[in-house]
C-alpha cells in the first residue's frame, strides 16, 4: 500500500522535515532544529502540529443518536453542552480499549477525533453498532492541525478572530478566508492550545500565516516527548485491547452517572474493577540518574521479582531527565515505591511517581 501524504507535505519539505512512515502516512518526525529545541519552543512559545492523519468522524443525528452513543461511550452525552468536548474510549465487551478519542457535541451531531492507526477499524465497529441509522463521514477532505503553547492563543486569534474566548475542552465554528473552520481549545501536549479542522485546500495557507506570526512547525518526535511529560497516553503503547480504562488509571474520564446505570459496552468489567480493584495499573516511573527506560523495559521490585513493564519512556527536555510510564502490579503502584528497571542487562533504580511530570494550567475561565 502506498503511503499517504497530508496536505501540508510540501510545507513540511520546505521546512526541511525528516519524514517517517506513521500509520500509513509520510509524517514529519522533526525539522532542522531537532526534537529538544522543538519541544522547548512549544513549551515556551508556540508550536504547530500536523495531525491530519488522525480521523475526523462526523456523525449526524439528534436525540436518538445521543441515546445510541451512550450505549457505546461511558459518557453523559445527554448533558454535554453544545460545542463541548470529552476524552473517552471505544471499548470491547471486556472493556479492552479499541481506541482513545475526543468527542465533541456539534449542532448537527458529534465530531469524534480518532487515532490514525485505528480510524478505519473504529469506523467499522461504529457502523456495526449503529446499524446504518445515522450518516457517518470519516472526512478525508479536512485537515487537522494543533497549535500548542503559551503564545498560541494570541497568535491564532490574530489570524482567526475570537478563538481566545474559547474555554478549555470547548469549540466552535470560525471563519478563515470565508471557509468554515471548527476550532476546539484542546491538545495533547500539556499546554494551552487549539485543534483546528479546516478544508485541505486551505490548511497550507492557514499554517503559513501562523508561522508568519511566530509559531513553528513541530514534528511527531517532540509531540511524543511533550505528551509523555504531560502524562498522556499513546494508543498502541500505553493503551490497547489488553488494557481497560480502569487499569490505565483513566477512571476520571468515565461518567459516574453512567457507571450507576451500567448500560454501556464494557460496563460489567468496569464496575467490577472499580469495586474490586485491578491487578495491574498504569503509573509514572522516574528513573534515577539519566538512564532511559524505553517501551518493553521490565520493572522489578526490591526483591527482584518482575512486577511490570514500561509502555512509554524517553528523555523529557523540560524535566531535563528521563521520564516513563508503565503498568505495575497494583500493590507496587503507590507513589515513591522503589523499583528497578532492566536496561541492557543491568538493573537501574527508579521510583513510582505521580503524573504528569510537567504541569501547567489549562485556560478554564476566560469568560
Amino acid at each position, binding site marked *: 500500500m502506498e503511503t499517504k501524504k497530508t496536505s501540508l507535505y510540501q510545507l513540511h519539505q520546505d521546512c526541511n522535515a525528516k519524514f517517517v512512515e506513521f500509520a500509513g502516512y509520510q509524517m514529519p*518526525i*522533526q525539522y532542522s532544529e*531537532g*526534537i*529538544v*529545541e522543538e519541544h522547548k519552543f512549544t513549551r515556551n512559545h508556540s508550536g504547530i502540529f500536523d495531525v491530519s492523519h488522525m480521523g475526523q468522524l462526523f456523525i449526524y443525528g439528534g436525540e436518538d443518536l445521543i441515546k445510541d452513543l451512550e450505549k457505546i461511550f461511558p459518557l453523559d452525552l445527554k448533558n454535554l453542552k453544545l460545542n463541548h468536548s470529552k476524552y473517552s474510549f471505544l471499548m470491547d465487551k471486556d472493556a479492552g480499549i479499541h481506541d482513545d478519542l475526543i468527542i465533541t457535541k456539534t449542532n448537527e451531531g458529534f465530531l469524534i477525533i480518532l487515532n490514525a492507526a485505528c480510524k478505519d477499524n473504529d469506523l467499522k465497529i461504529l457502523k456495526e453498532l449503529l446499524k446504518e441509522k445515522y450518516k457517518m463521514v470519516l472526512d478525508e477532505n479536512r485537515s487537522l492541525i494543533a497549535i500548542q503553547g503559551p503564545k498560541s492563543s494570541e497568535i491564532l486569534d490574530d489570524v482567526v478572530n475570537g478563538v481566545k474566548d474559547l474555554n478549555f475542552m470547548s469549540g466552535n465554528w470560525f471563519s478563515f478566508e470565508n471557509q468554515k473552520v471548527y476550532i476546539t481549545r484542546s491538545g495533547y501536549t500539556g499546554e494551552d492550545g487549539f485543534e483546528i479542522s479546516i478544508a485541505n485546500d486551505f490548511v497550507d495557507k492557514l499554517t503559513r500565516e501562523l508561522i508568519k506570526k511566530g509559531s513553528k512547525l513541530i514534528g511527531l*518526535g517532540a509531540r511524543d*516527548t511533550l505528551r509523555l511529560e504531560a502524562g498522556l497516553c499513546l494508543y498502541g503503547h500505553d493503551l490497547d485491547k489488553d488494557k481497560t480504562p480502569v487499569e490505565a488509571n483513566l477512571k476520571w474520564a468515565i461518567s459516574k452517572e453512567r457507571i450507576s446505570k451500567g448500560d454501556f459496552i464494557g460496563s460489567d468489567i468496569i464496575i467490577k474493577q472499580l469495586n474490586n480493584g485491578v491487578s495491574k495499573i498504569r503509573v509514572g516511573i522516574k528513573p534515577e540518574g*539519566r*538512564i*532511559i527506560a*524505553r517501551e518493553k523495559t521490565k520493572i522489578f521490585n526490591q526483591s527482584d521479582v518482575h512486577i511490570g513493564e514500561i509502555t512509554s519512556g*524517553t*528523555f523529557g*527536555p523540560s524535566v531535563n531527565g*528521563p521520564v516513563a510510564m508503565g503498568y505495575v502490579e497494583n500493590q507496587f503502584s503507590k507513589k515513591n515505591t522503589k523499583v528497578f528497571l532492566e536496561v*541492557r542487562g543491568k538493573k537501574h533504580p527508579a521510583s513510582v511517581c505521580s503524573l504528569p511530570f510537567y504541569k501547567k494550567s489549562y485556560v478554564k475561565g476566560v469568560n
Partner: protein
Amino acid sequence: MSTVKYSKEHEWIKVDGDIATIGITKHATEMLGDIVFAELPEKGSNVEKDGTAGVVESTKAASDVYTPVSGEVVDTNQAIVDDPSKINQDPEDSAWFFKLKIKDPSEMDTLMNKDDYDKFAKETSA
C-alpha cells in the same frame, strides 16, 4: 604527527603514539538527532575491535558505540556523560568518548581515511 581514521560504524579515532582517542562522527550525530544519554566503557577494561564500548541515546532511540580497534581503556570523558548535548555540539573534538592504549597497531589499517569515510557516509545515508 597524529592520524585520524574512521570506521563503518561512524566512529573516529585519532592516534598519538600508542594512545588512541575515539568518538562518534558529526555525520553520526546528525543521523541520531539530539543526544540525551551517553554510557562509556569502564576505565581499565579491555575492549575488542568492533565490540560494544558504550551507548548513546537520542530522544528517539538507543545506539551502541563500537571501538574501531582493540585496547585497554585508559581514560573516559565524564563531561559528555554529565551533559550529553555536548556530543551534538562538538562531536569530533572536545566530545571524545574514551582513550585506549592500542593493542595491535595493524588494526588501524582496516579503517578509512577522511575522504573514503565522507564518501561512505554519503552513500549509506542516501
